[in-house]
C-alpha cells in the first residue's frame, strides 16, 4: 500500500510539474513585435529662410517619381531614397530643370525618423545639401537641416512640413520661390 501510494504521489507530482512547465512556457515567451527607430539631434536651428539657402547646395522644385530603401541603409541607418524630377532649379550647376535629383532621408514607411518622409507623386520645394557620403553622385542630396528644408506644394503655395522651432515661413508663394531660385 505504501509503495502504491508513493508511486501515485510521484505520478501526480510529475503531472503537476509537467503542467506547470507547459504553463510556464506559455507565459514566459509572449508574442513580441519588433521595431526600429532612428533618433537624432539637429546640428543647427535656422533663424531665416536665407540662412537655409546659404547652407544649401541647390534649391529646386521637384516631383517625387519613385522611392527605394537601400539594403545597407543610409550611413548605417534604415533610410529611403526618393527620386525626383526637377521642375525648377536655381543657379547651381549641379541640377537643371528636367533633370533628376535623389534625396536621402532616414526612416521609411516602417521605420520612424525625425523628418517627414517625401511621398511619391507629391511636389516639393526643397533646399538640398550634397551628402558627403562615399561614392555619392553629384545629384545625391540630404535635405538641408534635416526637416527644415522641406516645403510641400499646396493650393496656397509651398507649405512648410518641418515642425522644429526654426524661424522659417510656414508658406512660400510661387513668386517667393522665384526669388529664392535666383539666389541659389
Amino acid at each position, binding site marked *: 500500500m505504501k509503495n502504491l501510494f508513493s508511486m501515485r504521489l510521484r505520478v501526480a507530482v510529475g503531472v503537476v510539474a509537467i503542467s506547470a512547465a507547459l504553463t510556464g512556457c506559455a507565459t514566459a515567451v*509572449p*508574442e*513580441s*513585435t*519588433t*521595431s*526600429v*527607430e*532612428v*533618433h*537624432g*539631434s*539637429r*546640428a*543647427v*536651428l535656422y533663424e531665416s529662410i536665407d540662412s537655409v539657402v546659404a547652407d544649401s547646395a541647390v534649391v529646386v522644385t521637384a516631383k517625387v517619381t519613385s522611392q527605394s530603401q537601400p539594403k545597407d541603409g*543610409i*550611413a*548605417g*541607418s*534604415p533610410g529611403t531614397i526618393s527620386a525626383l524630377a526637377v521642375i525648377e532649379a536655381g543657379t547651381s550647376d549641379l541640377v537643371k530643370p528636367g533633370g533628376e535629383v535623389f534625396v*536621402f532621408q*532616414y526612416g521609411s514607411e516602417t521605420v520612424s525618423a*525625425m523628418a517627414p518622409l517625401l511621398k511619391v507623386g507629391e511636389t516639393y520645394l526643397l533646399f538640398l*545639401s*550634397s*551628402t*558627403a*557620403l562615399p561614392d555619392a553622385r553629384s545629384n545625391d542630396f*540630404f*535635405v*538641408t*537641416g*534635416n526637416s*527644415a528644408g522641406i516645403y510641400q506644394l499646396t493650393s496656397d503655395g509651398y507649405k512648410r512640413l518641418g515642425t*522644429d522651432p526654426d524661424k522659417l515661413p510656414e508658406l512660400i508663394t510661387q513668386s517667393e520661390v522665384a526669388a529664392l531660385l535666383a539666389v541659389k
Partner: protein
Amino acid sequence: MKRPKIRTRVTAAAAAILISSALVLVQGGPANAYSLYGCKWSSATISIRNITAGVYSTASSAAILSWSNLTDVTLTASSSSPFVVTTYNANDGLAGKTTMSTATNAFGCTITGANAAGNTYTGASYSAGKKRFAYAHELGHALGLNHSANNTVMAPFASYYDTYLNNVPTTDDINGINAIY
C-alpha cells in the same frame, strides 16, 4: 478635556503639512522635464561596444563613463554587445543619430540593440566638449530617453550644447535614467 486633544491634533496635522511642504521644497525643485522613450534594456547593467577612434573615442568614452558613474545604469565593455557606439560621416544636418531596435510584448518594450553614432562631418568643427556632449546625447537616446529641455543633455538641438557644455549629464537627465532603471 477635549479641547486640548483637538488642539494637539490640529497642531500635529499642521506640523505634518509643514514638514511635508518642506520636504517637497527640499527634494522637488523644478518640475521634471525628462521624457522617456518607453523602452529599456532588460537590465541596468548594460554591455556596450565602443568602436570609435581618436578624438571621437576620447569623447565617447567620457560620455559613457559619465552615464555609468552618475546614474543607476552600469555600462560595461563587451566586444559582442548589440549596443554599439560609433561614428559616421554625412552632411545630413545632424550632430549624431541613434538607431534602436526594440521588442514589445505584454511585459513592456525592451531595447534589443542600439547604434549610437556621432557625425564626424558636423563634429569636425566641434570642440572636445561639444563632441562629448553629442555622444552623451546619443547615449541618452540609446538608454531610453527622448528629447527634453534645452538646458539638458537631451536638448533636441546641438546648437544648445554650446551654452550648457559644463554639466553633462544634468540632474534632469540623471533623474530620467534612474526613473527607467
